[in-house]
């Protein structure tokens, strides 16, 4: 029996595979029967504690709570919070925990949501901490895979772009590795390969097969899922390196011809130019549906944490 009441979500590893499947299943049901859940969180408050800007994740969480009849409060950058006055995370959360029933935190410092969870009396959800974890993006990715592929095991998955700094890639690949039978195709420039420590972890702990490529075309014919990522300017120390690499891995209609007819293209968004606009019309491009599914999976997660999932 899955029980997530009062639990924090800091890393995808905080959830068992059964818990992940239960959240995804409820998210699917919420999508199909949205009206049934419109009052589920009446009287509940979500605090959105965003110490750095994030349009998408913040609005997705807010939409999720509002769609369940709850309310929201919060701040959207550190300068409008007491952190600007030098308050510790522990102090902030001890106060804010009395204002809300569940909180999502995004913070530029890696590990900050974990610190918050140690002092909070309400569930803390990590909404992204630096280059570390982003567990609800992983849940979003998983509900998308469940929707379009129908299984989370025995998959051929290509990750393309910035595999070194991309936290969404790290979280998803590690979670998919916990399901049996998948093979991962890693497409990146040499400067942005998956960190060695993570590769060792995947091969030693989970026995994963990893295949590396320098060109997207080589991986495309083999995969069920192509997970694209943006090469983020803010991760580079050097402008010249950014300019040299940013166009290296662009998906366009020609490259899509190499892919399986049932392959799907995912992207955590925002996209810059790594997926040409012409690909948007291809039925295999599911990144906008992925963003929509993120709302439902966040609804399901919060419903479980607040103990209203079975009402």
């Amino acid at each position, binding site marked *: 029996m899955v029980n997530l009441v009062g639990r924090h979500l800091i890393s995808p590893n905080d959830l068992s595979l059964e818990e992940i499947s239960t959240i995804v299943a409820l998210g699917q049901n919420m999508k199909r029967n949205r009206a049934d859940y419109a009052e589920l969180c009446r009287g509940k408050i979500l605090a959105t504690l965003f110490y750095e800007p994030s349009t998408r994740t913040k609005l997705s969480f807010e939409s999720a709570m509002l769609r369940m009849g709850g309310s929201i409060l919060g701040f959207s950058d550190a300068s409008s919070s007491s952190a600007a006055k030098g308050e510790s*995370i522990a102090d902030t959360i001890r106060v804010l925990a009395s204002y809300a029933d569940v909180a999502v935190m995004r913070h530029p410092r890696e590990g900050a949501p974990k610190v918050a969870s140690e002092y909070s009396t309400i569930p803390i959800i990590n909404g992204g901490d630096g280059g570390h974890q982003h567990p609800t993006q992983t849940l979003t990715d998983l509900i998308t895979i469940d929707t379009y592929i129908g299984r989370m095991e025995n998959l051929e998955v290509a990750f393309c772009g910035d595999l070194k700094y991309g936290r969404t890639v790290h979280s998803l690949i590690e979670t998919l590795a916990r399901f049996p039978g998948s093979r991962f195709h890693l497409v990146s420039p040499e400067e942005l390969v998956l960190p060695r420590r993570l590769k060792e972890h995947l091969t030693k702990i989970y026995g994963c097969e990893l295949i590396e490529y320098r060109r997207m075309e080589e991986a495309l014919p083999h995969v069920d899922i192509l997970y694209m990522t943006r090469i983020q300017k803010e991760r580079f120390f050097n402008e010249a390196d950014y300019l040299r690499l940013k166009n290296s891995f662009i998906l366009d209609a020609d490259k899509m011809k190499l892919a399986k007819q049932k392959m799907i293209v995912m992207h955590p968004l925002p996209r810059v130019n790594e997926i040409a606009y012409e690909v948007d019309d291809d039925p295999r491009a599911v990144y906008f549906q992925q963003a929509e599914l993120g709302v439902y999976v966040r609804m399901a997660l919060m419903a479980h944490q607040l103990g209203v999932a079975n009402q």
Partner: protein
Amino acid sequence: MIEVASIRRGLVVDHITAGKGLLIFNKLNMASLNCPVVLLMNVPSQRMGRKDIIKVENFTEIDTAMLGLIDTKVTVNIIENEHVVEKIKLAIPHEVKGLFPCGNPRCVTNIDAYVTPTFHLHDEANCSYTCEYCEEITKVEIR
């Protein structure tokens, strides 16, 4: 050969790798102890060739985690009535709290003074630890 009298009650940190005695003395803040402390350096040793020794009288509490990080060869003898009542063989600690900073500059432990850096042993062979908060690996060398 310099003679140092045995102590009646306290502790003897023995088999310190020669040259690390002063580091242990400093890192364990022994200069601030309000009791007699003796640091012996380059003492002849059958087993080690040369070794350092620290004797502390009327004091038996010692930070074995920090000691283990500096030198796993060390033995700590607890002395009562001039006899060794306990011999502690040191090992590299599996859990460490507050003894060194996280090597990841983006880690929350490096900016929020409220948080104590906390680590789990990652690889004993090269003395590296995984941060409890950011999960990055820090190689530790106490200097």
